[in-house]
Every structure is written in C-alpha cells, then in structure tokens.
C-alpha cells in the first residue's frame, strides 16, 4: 500500500513537473523573443548611428543583452575577433547555433534569425538598418504568436501534466 502510494505520487508529480516545464517553455520563448527584438534594435543603433565595426557592435550588444540572448552576439563577436577570414555570414551562423543550444526558441524563430546572415555587414548602414528593422518586425510577429500560444496552451500544459499523471495512475489501478 505504501509502495502504491509512493508510486502514485511519483507518477503524478513527474507528469505535473513535465507539464509545468512545458508551460514555462512557452513563457520563456515569449520573453526571449522580446529580448531578442530589443537586442537587435541595440545592434541596429550600434551600426546605423554609431557606425561601429561589426565585431565591436556585436560585443557591445552582448554586454547589453541578458542571458541567453547575449550568447548569440558574444559567439558572433568572438568568431569575428579571431580575424581568421571568417565572414559575417559564417560568424552569425555560429552565433545562431550557440543560441539555439541555450534558448527556448522554436526552429521557426531560429530560421528567421539565420536569414540575417547573408545581409550582415555587407551593405550600407541604411540597408543594415532596413534588414535589422525587418527582422525585428518579424520577431515581433513571432512574439505575438507566442503570446497567443501562451493564452491558449499555458493552462493546458500547467494542469495537463497533473491530469495526465492522474489518468495514468487510474489506468494502472
């Protein structure tokens, strides 16, 4: 009886934690998309107004942004600062890969970020501004979608885990 009770608690708790972490992922994604948008606006300022070199602009943005978003900019800056002939395209791709490993972003968000690679650093300041603004807007749309997803699915994930755990227990009994 004691074993059954312990098992029941473990199943319900495990499923509940899984559900809560799913709900947390949704919230985190929305927060991170917002922060990413802000960081890109900062990068835009570094390029468009300050005319800082890309490696310096990335480094400054990395200092401005919080974890895990700063990983993207820090990794890109690090790659550029190696001065081994790496192009901005390659450095940004590495940064995006590093961010993907740390952040709660969807593959769609990552693919969107990766589109900037081919445009980064290779055109005039106004073109850079246009590209970064466009990406910021796209990320804004993703953020709205993420918010809608939270509204629809946050409760489902939060309670769903516990409900599923209970259902499993009932089935086993």
């Amino acid at each position, binding site marked *: 009886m004691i074993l059954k009770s312990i098992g029941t608690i473990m199943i319900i708790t495990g499923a509940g934690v899984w559900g809560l972490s799913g709900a947390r992922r949704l919230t985190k994604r929305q927060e991170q998309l917002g922060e990413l948008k802000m960081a890109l606006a900062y990068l835009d300022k570094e390029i468009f107004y300050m005319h800082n070199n890309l490696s310096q602009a990335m480094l400054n943005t990395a200092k401005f942004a919080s974890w895990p978003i700063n990983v993207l900019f820090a990794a890109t800056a690090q790659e*550029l600062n190696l001065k081994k*002939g790496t*192009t*901005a395209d390659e*450095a940004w791709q590495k940064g995006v890969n590093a961010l993907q490993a740390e952040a709660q972003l969807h593959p769609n968000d990552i693919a969107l970020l990766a589109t900037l690679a081919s445009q980064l650093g*290779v055109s005039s300041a106004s073109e850079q501004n246009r590209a970064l603004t466009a990406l910021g807007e796209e990320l804004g749309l993703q953020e709205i979608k993420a918010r809608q997803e939270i509204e629809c699915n946050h409760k489902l994930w939060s309670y769903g885990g516990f409900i599923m755990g209970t259902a499993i227990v009932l089935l086993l009994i």
Partner: protein
Amino acid sequence: MPVISSPNQIKTEILSYLPIHMQKLLNSLKPDDYHNLEEIRLRCGQPLVVRIGERELAVGPGRLTATLHEGYRVEREDICRVIASISDNSLYAFEEDIRRGFITIPGGHRVGLAGQVVLKEHHIELIKNFGSLCFRVAREVKGCAGPVMPILFGNPQQVLHNTLIVSPPRCGKTTLLRDIARCISAGSHCPGMNVVVVDERSEIAGCHQGVPQLDVGPRTDILDGCPKDVGMMMAIRSLSPQVIITDEIGRQGDADAVMECVHAGVNIISSAHAGNLDELRQRPILRKLMSDGVFKLVIILSRRQGPGHIDQVIRWDAQ
C-alpha cells in the same frame, strides 16, 4: 635609404587580409620581391597578379610566372572574403571610402575597389558586386627628401619656397611629399615648423581611423579624407600652420585655396600630374598659378633611375 616594406611587414599588414590559400601562394615571393612589391591585383576570374618594380607577374603554385594564364585564378568567393576582411565585416563603416573607391588599411596601404557603381543624381552612391581589388603597398622612404631639402630652403634668407612637385603617376611624388612633411615637421635640415597635411585620398599619411600610419613628423596635423580646397581653408582658420602640404592639385577650387594660403602667409608644397614642364603649362589652372608666381620652385620627378629620381629643378621666378 630605408624602404620600409620588410617581408614580415608585408605579411602582417597586407597578406593577412587574403584567404589562407592565397597567402600560401604568395609565400613564393623572395625577400627582394617583398622590398620591391608595389601592387597585388585580384580580378574575378583572372590570374592573381603582383607588380614587383617594373615586372608584372602572375602568382602560381610555388612560383611567380610572366605567363599570366599559369597563375592562380581568383574566384568571387576570394574577393568577397578579402572585402569582408579589409572592412572588418563592416562595409557600412566604410561607405565614404567605398564611394571614393578605396579603403586604407593599417600600415597606410590602400586597397582600390572596382565593381558595379550605383549612381544617385550623378554622384556615386556605392559600389557593389566587387569584381576586382588592388592592394597598393604604401612605401615609406625615409630620407628621400634629403637631397630636396636644401633646394626648398635654397635662398640666403633660408625661407621655404612654395614648391610644386611634378611627375607622371608612379614616380614617387607622394613618397617625396611625405618625407618633406616629416623633415620640415621634425626640423631636419631646417627649423621645425607646424605642418598641416591635407590628405584627401589618405595617401600621404596613410591614416587608419584618424591615426597616421606613416611617419609625417611630430609637428604635423592631418586632415584625412578632406577635400583639398576645404581642408586648406580649414587649416588656415583653425590649425595655424606654417606649411600646408597636399597632393595632386588641379581643380579651380584647389587653385583658389592655394592662393588664399599664399596670401595668408602660409607656405604650400604640393604635387601635380604632368610629364614635364610643357605638359604642366598646358594645364590652364596650373599655368595660371605659375604665372601668378605662386610656386617659386618646380621639381620634376621621373623613374629614369627608379621612382623618386629628381629629373629637373626649376626656379620659377628665374624663368
């Protein structure tokens, strides 16, 4: 005279901007070749070419060859990588330089750019789709002004003459101007004077981010990338120069600014493109400056015995 272009200097200041495989190809250059290296040319789909003194050679695997088609063919990818490298992946930070057609890299070396030019209202908006690049090695020949300095001050009062240095391209005008700036500024062969270099094309001082990469002396201020006429007037107003040095005058605005300088009691040393005195006389703006007695001294250079050879010295007031 020490020509400052050692193999190591060339390797770190220029070759490091090239992709690794090109660096390896250029390792076949001998130390003497580095000393005489003037240009490295990358043209999309064409052989990688170096100009060493009077020779133009293609760079092939392990050797230099006069047969151009045996050289390594430069690919668009190579050009893109070099552009990314020289601009630190930040073309937007070099917009003005690109409009002028070149980027100056640390060491004062210039990378000339060619590609698709985009115009806006008859002005160059930008260059895109770069098709070729030309690295021009900045050559600092300290002491090359030595023979010229006594001529510049060659009067009993030891007063500096307003001087025009004349030659066709690639005869060492800019190198001579740079060393004259250094000597006058450092007070070698004369009392030290405040010098302003109006360096419209960043050739004299080879400034990178505002800092001269080549020695132009301790009392020298540089207006880098500044149009000559604007720079000369600006210098008179704000920098109290005793001497203004500028390269390649030829426009009416330049002539007007030179006149202003002379009337303001500032000495001018400048250069102009012309093969000889007759060619110089055929340029109306320069002829007017001469006939107005602005320049008292004309030094004509040639490559007869290598760049910087003084072919003729003409005291204009004696003509």
